[in-house]
């Protein structure tokens, strides 16, 4: 019921925005963009890009204030949302950590404390190895890990976060056994791989682009249902679209993608929620947004309302299966 109203309202708002918006909710004071990562991180770039697009195209009268609350893997931002329940002047920027974090750590918030506004992009995950690595494809890496259980060091950023979940998923699906080593961030893992201190990582395209350009590392496959968008060649004649999908490469994982999501504190007026999802829809249609997606090699996908909620439910279920098998669940 509630969900239906929400969609209707969103649709209505979208319609009305072009006409004189008489019943439309508008922010009355500066809007805070709460970023669930530190300055310079992927989520930070995501939020600041949206900020600059909104400002440039004058999509909103009120100014935007960006605040980084990235500690505790982003938990700080989500707890802040809970403390500001019902406040329609705060948006929270995150990934899937919003709804996955409470399952693996005892935190003072639940997913119900945040209202989903929209997802704007999907960030891809790839398996990378060092350029001169003996593993020519995903299969041989998996076989090596089966032959030497717990010996092949696989790097990733943070613990029990998206990277380790993916590695655990690979292990569960293939029966391989890696040695997972957590680092502080994707950039760091990329350098550790280039230096040969770990055998592989599952970085996002953006985090490893420079190393690939420099021919220090190379990708094996991408966890996406279809190949990535065609673009300029990156290394030699190889470009993003030349990377096989992991299912092509023989890994039984069809897709593993990280959504870039926007949330609001739960309990905000329906009209406000509709306003923001409409605003983000407009952002996702600007050339600057397309530019951002191309530069960071992300897949553009605008999800709001029930579509977004279904996505969350599905992504959460998949992750919970992994968490359960690994024994990470706290509740």
């Amino acid at each position, binding site marked *: 019921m509630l969900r239906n109203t929400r969609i209707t309202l969103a649709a209505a708002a979208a319609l009305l925005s072009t006409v004189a918006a008489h019943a439309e909710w508008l922010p009355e*004071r*500066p809007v*805070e963009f709460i970023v669930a990562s530190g300055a310079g991180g992927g989520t930070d770039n995501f939020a600041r890009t949206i900020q600059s697009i909104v400002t440039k195209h004058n999509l909103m009268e009120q*100014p935007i*204030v*960006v*605040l980084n609350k990235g500690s505790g893997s982003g938990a700080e931002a989500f707890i802040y949302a809970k403390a500001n329940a019902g406040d329609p*002047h705060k948006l929270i920027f995150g990934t899937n950590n919003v709804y996955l974090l409470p399952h693996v750590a005892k935190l003072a918030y639940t997913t119900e404390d945040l209202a989903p506004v929209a997802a704007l992009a999907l960030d891809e995950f790839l398996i990378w190895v060092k350029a001169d690595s003996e593993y020519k494809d995903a299969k041989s890496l998996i076989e090596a890990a089966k032959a030497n259980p717990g010996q092949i060091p696989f790097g990733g950023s943070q613990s029990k976060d998206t990277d380790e979940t993916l590695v655990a998923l690979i292990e569960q699906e293939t029966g391989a056994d890696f*040695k997972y080593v957590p680092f502080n961030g994707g950039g760091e893992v990329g350098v550790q791989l280039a230096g040969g201190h770990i055998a592989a990582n599952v970085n996002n395209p953006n985090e490893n682009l420079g190393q690939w350009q420099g021919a220090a590392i190379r990708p094996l496959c991408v966890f996406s249902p279809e190949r990535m968008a065609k673009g300029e060649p990156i290394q030699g004649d190889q470009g993003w679209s030349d990377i096989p999908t992991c299912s092509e490469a023989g890994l039984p994982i069809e897709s593993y993608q990280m959504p870039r999501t926007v949330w609001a504190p739960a309990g905000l007026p329906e009209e406000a929620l509709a306003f923001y999802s409409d605003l983000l829809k407009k952002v996702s249609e600007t050339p600057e947004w397309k530019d951002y997606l191309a530069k960071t090699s992300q897949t553009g996908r605008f999800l709001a309302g029930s579509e977004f909620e279904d996505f969350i439910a599905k992504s959460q279920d998949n992750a919970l299966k992994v968490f359960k098998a690994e024994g990470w669940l706290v509740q």
Partner: protein
Amino acid sequence: MVIRRFHMELFVAGLTALAGAVTTFGSLELGVGWTESGPEPGYFPFYIGLLLAVLGLYNGAHAAIAKRGDAELFVEKRHAIRLARFGGPMAAFVVVTILLGLYVGTALYLFYVAWRQGGYRPLLSALIGVGFSLALFAVFELTFKVPLLKGPLEPLFGIY
């Protein structure tokens, strides 16, 4: 009662020992062992806490046995008065700030100290307080877009 340095040595040693004990107990639930993939999360905090507690007790015992600073006053009376006159408003500033926000807290605090302790005229003192507060607002809020803690009063002026 006169507070001597000796008493404070015991007090601070006890306090550090207590901090150590809290750390030790806090890490117990995390697992304090050593597994094949290295230390468990509580390993370092546990031993750090334990060592801290032991050293705190040692420092205390050392001070007690040596009667270190038994004859020495911790603070002279006139120093203590000065500290209280400065520290009191400072503590009040924190309380007022949490209730009314940093801008109002700062203005009141500067006003009070300049007026009561600096001996400036009330009007001038108020100007100093409000002026500094406005300067903070101009620099943080307007120029660098860093919001500071606001209380119930700012919204009345349309500032959020």
